């Protein structure tokens, strides 16, 4: 064998490696059809648990679940839609992102043929269907789970302070007054953050055709009585030192629940499950659920399934069948509720006896009945493409009111001015 320079052999190895890599990439796909579903926890677990049922209906079609963490998933979906690369056949979307995604043209209109989602409309909670409808009248996703708003409170802390549920929920003013009594008697904070109150109060009294921050003509709505009231109430909470000044999902937030130093939390019904499963399981039996103060109605979170417009057309009929299985099959919806606390958007699933059962974590209270009633009364709010930015602006101005003593009127005027610059971008 003639001598070859070492570098020449190495160079050939590199060249062969490139050839092998290219050849591998060119191999034909497997014959078995695969439907790709992109999801985040715990929607991914719900999808996986529905696979046996899917296989009964479609034995020749596998489901591949692409799971990422919540924020990563939505970033990946944004990237996939923007580049049309690695698009899943079905994508799960959280309602906070749905509004933004619905404004673009990246998702199939499920109201159009061949989907015709309107024929199923009456089967879902009304507001959930409306949430998936954009201003062009397109329905870009189907609802699978919802988050009816509720007030979770520590019954033991309230009892210690001599505060009743009726006192707590009569009005926003009585809620704050109860907070002062709770703080004086037990030292516990009324809420995790004054911002939580503002988030609910700005959702009350929205007129038809209005969004949260903008109306249908992109006019800014933040300098209005509902924002003034929300800011004043939040300022009062902070002035009386009734909030723990901690954000949701932080270390201090979960510690506050574990130690009973946060007496109430306005949230979606699903938080009871999270508290029970991992946030504060040792507090089981001490919590109760009540309606939001002053009869406020609000939704916290919710999941939808959508079909990307540029996903492979050949698999779209299967993708639509999969979405129907996840959103219209009573057993799948109930299974998700029982295993992952994913409150069903499907009305037929809400008539199950499971709803009347007592919840041990809530001291045996059959709270699901009240959540079901609340879910049917919640009204959808129109979304605007600048809602995420508007929420940030309002939070920032509220920070200035709470931390720097900025007058509410000035804060809202500044927010209005900043949002006017953005409204039509």
């Amino acid at each position, binding site marked *: 064998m003639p001598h070859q320079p070492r570098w020449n052999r190495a160079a050939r190895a590199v060249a062969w490696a490139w050839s092998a890599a290219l050849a591998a990439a060119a191999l034909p796909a497997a014959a078995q059809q695969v439907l790709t579903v992109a999801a985040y926890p715990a929607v991914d677990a719900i999808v996986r648990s529905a696979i046996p049922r899917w296989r009964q209906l479609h034995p020749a079609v596998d489901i591949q679940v692409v799971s990422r963490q919540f924020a990563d998933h939505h970033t990946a979906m944004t990237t996939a*839609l923007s580049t049309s690369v690695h698009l899943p056949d079905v994508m799960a979307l959280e309602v906070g992102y749905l509004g933004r995604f619905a*404004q673009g043209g990246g998702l199939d209109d499920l109201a159009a043929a061949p989907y015709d989602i309107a024929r199923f409309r009456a089967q879902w909670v009304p507001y959930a269907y409306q949430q998936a409808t954009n201003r062009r009248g397109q329905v870009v996703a189907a609802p699978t789970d919802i988050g009816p708003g509720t007030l979770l409170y520590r019954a033991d802390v309230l009892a210690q302070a001599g505060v009743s549920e009726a006192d707590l929920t009569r009005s926003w003013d009585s809620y704050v007054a109860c907070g002062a009594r709770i703080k004086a008697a037990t030292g516990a904070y009324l809420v995790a953050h004054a911002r939580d109150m503002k988030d609910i109060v700005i959702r009350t009294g929205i007129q038809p055709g209005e969004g949260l921050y903008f109306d249908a003509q992109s006019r800014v709505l933040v300098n209005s009585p509902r924002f003034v009231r929300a800011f004043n109430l939040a300022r009062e909470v902070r002035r009386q030192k009734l909030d723990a000044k901690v954000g949701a*999902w932080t270390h201090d937030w979960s510690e506050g629940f574990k130690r009973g130093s946060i007496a109430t939390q306005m949230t979606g019904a699903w938080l009871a499950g999270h508290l029970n499963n991992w946030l504060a399981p040792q507090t089981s039996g001490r919590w109760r659920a009540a309606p939001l103060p002053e009869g406020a109605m609000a939704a916290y979170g919710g999941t939808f399934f959508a079909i990307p417009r540029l996903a492979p057309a050949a698999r779209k009929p299967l993708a639509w069948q999969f979405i129907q299985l996840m959103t219209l099959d009573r057993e799948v919806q109930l299974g998700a509720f029982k295993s992952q606390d994913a409150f069903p958007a499907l009305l037929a699933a809400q008539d199950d006896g499971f709803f009347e059962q007592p919840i041990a974590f809530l001291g045996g209270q059959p709270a699901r009945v009240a959540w079901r009633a609340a879910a049917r009364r919640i009204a959808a709010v129109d979304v605007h493409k600048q809602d*995420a930015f508007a929420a940030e602006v309002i939070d920032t101005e509220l920070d200035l009111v709470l931390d720097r003593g900025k007058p509410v009127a000035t804060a809202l005027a500044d927010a209005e001015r900043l949002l006017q610059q953005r409204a039509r971008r």
Partner: protein
Amino acid sequence: MKLPAALRLSPALAPYVFISPFLLLFAVFGVFPLCFSLYLAFQSWEPTSGLEAMQYVGLDNFAFALQDPWFWKSLGNTAWLAAASGVPQHLVAIPLAVFIHNRFHRLRNGVVGAWFMPYITSTVAIAILFSSLFSTDFGLVNQALQALGRLPLLGWLVPAEPIDWLNDPDRIKPAIAIIVFWRYVGFNLVLYLAALQTIPQDLYEAATMDGASRLQQFLFITLPSLKPMVFFGVTLSVIGGLQLFEEPFILTGGRGGSDQAGMTTAIYLYRMAFDFNDFGAASAMSWLLFVVVALLTWLTNKAFADRARR
């Protein structure tokens, strides 16, 4: 076995084959994003509608960025954090390197490794650890401060109420600066230790014979000899400080903190793109940030060059 001639690489082609993996990766992950971001800076784009939704808007995104009060606010935050975390890194790392260089021999690698450890630790782990340490009601930092306040004569130093490190806009910047300082001081220490080893021992011996004190030796031999490395370290700190992202992002839950006191420009432009769906403005801001980085790097270069000429 001898390969057929057609499959053999000629010596002329071999270097290009060797370097092709790097060039390909650099083109995909370096050059393309750079060019695409420049292209995007002149477009209005609703990203979820796909690439065809782009519309040319000329310099609108740059005009918008320059008129955006939050962009200027983020630049101010970035400059504050870069200075507050960057300057102490060098003020501490230089004397510390000299101390370790002179005093530690057998234990030196272990000591340097301990200082370097934060630099190679996951940012996420660091941020989680510090968010726990800086917790208002349950954090060790506040507990230590309160214990300090109970000592005789030291009570006046410590505030009566626990400090809200991560929610108070006046505290969050110092909290972030402390973490960044802690993380990178070890890196600079290694730089200066390497530079110290290049200074000839003869200089110190001659100075000692001439009666120079330790302080004089430090001021007139060590510091001037370290100048090239100081320039290098400061340049890295300027560039790194102006691109600060991970620590404040994780520590503030990705939002930038109360009143966005911890929102750096890198965080803001990320949010502009992925939270507010405005990729055009985000790209324009990233190029404006690049101009600031380039300008400050040039000024750093000029400052050190001028001193050398004097």
